[in-house]
């Protein structure tokens, strides 16, 4: 059969489609590979010293007497820092989103929005550096501490970093609130501010909650700021002025000096797996909330 030009074009079309499909499928491949390779390096830990070693309140992987691979202090550090960051992130992030979306005038928004985007783009190592040389000493003198490198300092900076995410998603949620609700409220004699806080915000609440969760996901997954600023003491504490160690910082700090194939090495990969599961879990819940809300 002689291929005429139409058939050639169709063949070309099919070829292109296959290539593009292949490209798109690499995303799935990468996700699978991530789990695969994390698992591969972590598996040896199951036989020696065994998974239950992770359930320990002490993380002392390098020791002459007895190594401890308890993930609990690292988990506790991550949770404490995340919790504190969330406390700051919610009021500043949500209220700013409401202000930008409902109250600010156009010219104001056009200056503020790029500023927020700039913030989102500042590399974490620079924020960490700022914490190290400026914020840390300030916290130290304000609270009269030995060192300003603690959970609180980290939390403040992490909140700052997560706020653009919270603002962006919250704004989307608020924008999706039907205009008709606002009109009905105004027609009844309510003021703009009353309308915002009694009608718009409650209607957009699911999206705002999702935004906060996504912000929390960013905070838990952040490495450099906590590495440089939270003090790196693997203890379990609820005191924000204590130095703590997060899961992310542990991996970053210790992976460079660990012996390949050792239990310590595998333990670090377990920390990575835990971290991944937690962040993914948060993201999945947030996406569920967003999807359910958009269907309403």
């Amino acid at each position, binding site marked *: 059969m002689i291929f005429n030009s139409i058939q050639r074009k*169709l063949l*070309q*079309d099919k070829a*292109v*489609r296959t290539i*593009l*499909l292949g*490209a*798109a499928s*690499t*995303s*799935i491949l*990468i*996700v699978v590979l*991530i789990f695969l*390779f*994390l698992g*591969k390096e972590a598996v040896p830990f199951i036989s020696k010293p065994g998974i239950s070693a992770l359930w320990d309140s002490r993380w002392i992987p390098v020791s002459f007497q007895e190594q401890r691979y308890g993930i609990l202090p690292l988990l506790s550090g991550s949770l404490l820092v995340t919790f504190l960051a969330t406390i700051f992130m919610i009021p*500043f992030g949500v*209220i*700013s989103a*409401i*202000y*930008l979306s409902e109250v600010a005038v156009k010219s104001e928004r056009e200056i*503020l929005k790029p*500023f*927020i*985007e*700039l*913030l989102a*783009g*500042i*590399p*974490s*190592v*620079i924020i960490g*550096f700022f914490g*190290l*040389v400026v914020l840390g000493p300030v916290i130290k003198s304000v609270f009269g501490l030995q060192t300003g490198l603690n959970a609180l300092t980290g939390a403040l900076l992490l909140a*700052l970093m997560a706020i653009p995410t919270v603002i962006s998603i919250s704004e989307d949620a608020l924008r999706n609130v039907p205009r008709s609700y606002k009109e009905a409220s105004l027609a009844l004699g309510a*003021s703009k*501010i*009353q309308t915002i806080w009694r009608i718009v915000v409650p209607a957009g609440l699911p999206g705002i909650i999702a935004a906060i969760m996504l912000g929390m996901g960013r905070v838990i*997954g*952040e*490495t*450099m700021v906590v*590495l*440089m600023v939270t003090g790196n003491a693997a203890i379990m504490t609820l005191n924000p002025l204590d130095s703590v160690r997060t899961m*992310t910082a542990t991996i*970053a700090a210790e*992976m460079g000096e660990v012996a*390949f194939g050792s239990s310590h090495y595998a333990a*670090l990969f377990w920390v*990575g797996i835990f*971290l991944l599961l937690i*962040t*993914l879990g948060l*993201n999945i819940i947030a*996406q569920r909330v967003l999807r359910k809300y958009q269907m309403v």
Partner: protein
Amino acid sequence: MNAFRQNHTTIQDTVIRWSMRFFTYAIVLGVGYILFDIIVKGIPAINWEFLTGFPRRGGSEGGILPAILGTTYLILGSIGVALPLGMASALYLSEYASQGRLNRMIRLAIITLAGVPSIVFGLFGLGMFVLFFDFGTSILSGSLTLAFMILPTIIVSSEEALRAVPQALREGSLALGATRWQTIYKNVLPYALPGMFTGSILGIGRAAGETAPILLTVAAFYLPILPTSIFDQVMALPYHLYILATQHPDTQKVLPLQYGTALVLLFLVTGFNLIAIFLRMRFRKKYKW
């Protein structure tokens, strides 16, 4: 019934309005102060030698040229992989995909990737590129790791750019008998490409500024020579700043260098982001469908 008092909320409203302003502008102030601090304390360290010289004495003196170059190579390497891959994926999702199961899985994968912490990418890069493929800690390992990390960003922004092209353009072309690919190539891509590139610039910004992924896969601290192949280690700006700030013994002496490095990195990343923001504004106005 005269139970109605008047809705005198003006004072209340004003208080609320100003409280909201406070929260919003507090953030602006915070960001502004950080930028101000880095710029003001970084500028004194910037001079020709700093930007073009090599580090000496273990990094406490000299310049940061290798770090600047290293970051540049990493940017080029990661974009070289992520851009074509991401644009192709976006093309598929936007132009060819149906609502089938495979496509939902692809989208789920992209969202999942977007949520993976950067240090986990570092672990992945270590396990797969450095160890399994035996590339060692190298530009190659680092670029590939960074590429996978910024892939979701590129896909999402490219898809946005593609979706912004009106459906009518596609329908008109198809109605004339063109194939899908011809339609895309002639009628969609030309209009979407600017937006796609703009989105990629944001990806570049991320690749340039991330430390965690390159920590484990490529970065060296004191490497006063330039890399000769992609299998070499390399210095990089974010890593350089990190080490200078946390592990150098003589912190007082290197403080200006720290600020200088921070400023260069900030300038680079912010520069990319501002260009992207600016371009996006311009393209939105130009292609006002």
